[in-house]
């Protein structure tokens, strides 16, 4: 029997997640790291055989709920490639940054992260609507427990709020998906192409309703202004690995959802509502940036910065230009890498010194030069300095946006300027200057953390200096998507 790589990307993390969660901490650690590396290895193999055209590759299908004509279909194309790369790449890195002694029941934490990876892989590989929805929720359940069981103060309230917010969005999406599904016919009715065909045949009014149903889920997940109120609290309260999973990968579910399940399905709805979405995105960018400047909690600075950056991604997507969409995909990768690095920095400071207020930190560069370099690289990637990953993505996104509307692009460009302000200020107050207390210092980085951070730094520069492999992989798929999203 031929083994499907796609299926392995889901099953391996799922099974090892169950094993990990139920084994003792030391075994769990090895199992988790090993399985995440193998998963990444499998993905690299897939990447090697990937042909850069707009087709589905590594497909796997089997009937699932036959009475309803629901199928289990997996596949990889240029658009799902990037978030999947991000998932398989970041999970081993995130696992490497976890110190077992920091958590009460570390094997459960590691197991939940792997199970979440399985859910995320399902979302990015799903080619049928209900499988997508299943993955969407399956990724949410583990993070609910990660934040709720290992989080900080007020974790119960914050996690519930986050959970309900996202579930509300998901259910609206489900309603829209079922509505489309109820109008399809045939044996594999919930296939992406079948669903898209039916959805595109609806008139403008229906497409508008469907747009809002689907958009609600994606906007809450990203999150977009004004659906973001769960996000800063959830990021601040979650334990570092949870925050990394949330911001590094889970946020991309929303972006990917728009690309895969919104733009091609309801082009009339998109055309009708895109001005409003663009406006919300740009408001989010400016609003998030201003709040980030005002924050004193460094974890919240990174959280709001992430909120502002995702606003730019959304604006670029809805500009419906080739460079905007390609830029969004590249930025997905870049943002994932840098935000995980930044949250690691925050976590490391907090674990070492027990606080994360801007005023209470200073002079940490004296403790560890390597740490300062890692921080600097992540920061530069995040503020989009040329030759770093952020620059490629943000440049393409802003260029695409300016093709659509120059003034929007000008406002959206505020992300870059503002992020330089709050990020550099954060770097300055945390690392430079006088050390505030001499008895407490940064704990030394261990091997796993060093490996994780070096890999992140390599990625920041690789994407920044030589992005063309990534661009070539995604371009045909993006062109096809654009044709679907605009053509009438």
């Amino acid at each position, binding site marked *: 029997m031929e083994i499907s790589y796609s299926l392995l990307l889901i099953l391996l993390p799922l099974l090892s997640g169950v094993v990990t969660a139920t084994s003792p901490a030391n075994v769990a650690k090895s199992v988790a790291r090993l399985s995440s590396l193998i998963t990444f290895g499998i993905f690299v193999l897939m990447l090697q055989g990937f042909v850069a055209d707009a087709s589905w590759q590594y497909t796997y299908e089997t009937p699932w709920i036959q009475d309803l004509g629901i199928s289990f279909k997996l596949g990889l194309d240029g658009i799902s490639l990037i978030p999947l790369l991000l998932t398989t790449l970041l999970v081993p890195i995130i696992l490497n940054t976890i110190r077992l002694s920091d958590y009460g029941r570390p094997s459960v934490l590691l197991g939940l992260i792997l199970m979440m990876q399985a859910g995320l892989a399902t979302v990015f590989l799903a080619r049928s609507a209900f499988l997508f929805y*299943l993955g969407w929720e399956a990724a949410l359940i583990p993070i609910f427990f990660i934040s709720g069981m290992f989080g900080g103060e007020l974790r119960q309230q914050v996690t*519930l709020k986050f959970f309900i917010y996202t579930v509300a969005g998901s259910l609206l999406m*489900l309603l829209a998906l079922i509505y489309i599904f109820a109008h399809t016919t045939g044996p594999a009715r919930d296939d992406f192409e079948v669903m898209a065909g039916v959805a595109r045949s609806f008139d403008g009014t229906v497409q508008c309703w469907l747009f809002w149903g689907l958009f609600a889920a994606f906007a809450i997940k990203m999150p977009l202004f004004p659906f973001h109120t769960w996000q800063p609290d959830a990021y601040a309260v979650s334990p570092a690995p949870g925050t990394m999973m949330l911001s590094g990968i889970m946020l991309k579910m929303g972006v990917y959802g728009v690309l895969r399940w919104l733009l091609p399905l309801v082009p009339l709805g998109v055309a009708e509502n895109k001005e409003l979405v663009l406006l919300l995105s740009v408001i989010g960018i400016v609003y998030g940036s201003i709040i980030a400047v005002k924050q004193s909690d460094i974890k919240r600075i990174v959280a709001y910065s992430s909120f502002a950056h995702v606003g730019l991604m959304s604006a670029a997507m809805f500009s419906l230009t080739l460079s905007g969409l390609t830029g969004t995909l590249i930025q997905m990768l870049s943002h994932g890498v840098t935000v995980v690095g930044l949250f690691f920095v925050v976590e490391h400071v907090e674990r070492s010194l027990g606080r994360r207020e801007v005023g209470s930190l200073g002079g940490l560069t004296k403790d560890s030069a390597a740490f300062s370099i890692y921080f600097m690289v992540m920061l530069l990637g995040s503020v989009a300095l040329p030759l770093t990953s952020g620059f490629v993505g943000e440049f393409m996104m802003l260029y695409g946006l300016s093709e659509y509307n120059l003034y929007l692009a000008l406002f959206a460009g505020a992300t870059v300027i503002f992020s330089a302000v709050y990020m550099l200020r954060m770097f300055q107050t945390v690392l430079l200057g006088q050390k505030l207390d001499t008895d407490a210092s940064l704990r030394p980085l261990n091997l796993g953390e060093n490996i994780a951070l070096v890999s992140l730094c390599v990625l920041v520069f690789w994407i920044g200096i030589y992005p063309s492999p990534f661009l070539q992989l995604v371009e045909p798929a993006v062109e096809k998507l654009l044709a679907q999203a605009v053509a009438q």
Partner: protein
Amino acid sequence: MIAIGLLSLLGILVLFMGMITGRKGIIGATSFSILLALAGVFYEIRNPEALEAAYASAYMNGMMEMGTASGLFAAVILTCGLIIVPFAKAYERQEHAQLAEYCALMLWAMAGAVMMVTYRNLIMLFVGLEILSISVYILTGSDKRNVRSNEAALKYFLMGSFATGILLFGFALIYGSAGSFYLDQMAGPDLFSGQDIPVDLRMAGMVLVIIGLLFKVSAAPFHFWTPDVYEGAPTVFTAFMSTVVKTAGFAALLIFLEAFSTLFDHIFWFQILAVSTVLTLLIGNLLALVQSSFKRMLAYSGISHAGYMLIALLAFSADTVNNLLFYSLSYGLATATAFGVLILVGNRHQTEGLDPLRGLGKDEPLLAFILTVALASLGGIPLTAGFVGKLFIFSDALSNPAILAISVVAIIMSTVSVYYYFKVVAAMYMSDKVAPGRVQVSLGQQVALWGATAGTFALGLAPGILRLFL
């Protein structure tokens, strides 16, 4: 009909067994009786020809009929009973409890429930309903020294009798205009005069019967008895009521509506049910939201699930039977499990509210896991049976434009329900307070809980496995 016979006779045996052995072995005997009845049901579903030959096409002059759908409803009812019975175990140690009587009454109640899902004649519906109801009235009041149990029993009895009266009045009107109690003749001409007469009387009768049955399934606005009765009754019997009675009631309602489907434009009862559906969804979910007691929350959640099942009825298509069956099963498994865990942890901690559950994730990870799965299923989270059940119902409903708005309400209310279910999950895993005391779980209870949890997952992942039972 093997099931009805077995349940009635074995009920009597269990009762006498109680006189001989006291409390020992009663639960095992009861579970075994239910298993026998279940086997009887499947024997009948799988061998219709053999039985037809033996009974010349129909039992009791065709007043009851065990078809595939009826048989599966009976199977759902018996499965729920099978899960719940082991949780009566606490009575084995209680001085004043009459375990044999309770178990016999549960068996008889299930016999009544099976009649309610197999009737082809309104008389049989009435008889079945009364056998079920009277048994459950007694079970509700079985905690004789507890004022609230007494209050619940009295309330249930009074309200229930009233509803039965309405139902019977409806039967009378239908009989007066159709000249028959047989469902096959509901849509035909009047048997007395042999002529087609105006259907107004039958419509009036139908409305009364629908109201009577809506009362039994605790749909709004006939739900007022539910929270008090569910809360006051001993938890084992609450679990029994909220699964067995509800499934039987919905199956009876479906069979009743099907009998009339050729007579009227279905718009006629659609409006009545539509109003009830929306009210049920809103009242059930919004009031569940504000409950502090887990048991009372489950009572309101039971009301809210009646709302989803009513949507299945509203769609009234060829798939309605399957949808209702699947939903009843997924709801039954999850509800029985949730009540089961509540009974177990309630024993260690005698307070209301969420307190007994706090910190359960650390104390009893397996129980907490089981309850989490059950609540996720009730909330309709994917990977569980509850999600697939809702998917079936909504994909049927959304192809019908008339139910679109109600479906939107239902989806929004689902979000609300996720909140109150996951508030419990959060209390189990995320609060520091740990209630004292270990939880004793007997072998039978473990089998029941794990069986139901496995069922919930299996139905959520591969609903097609139900075909194996056909």
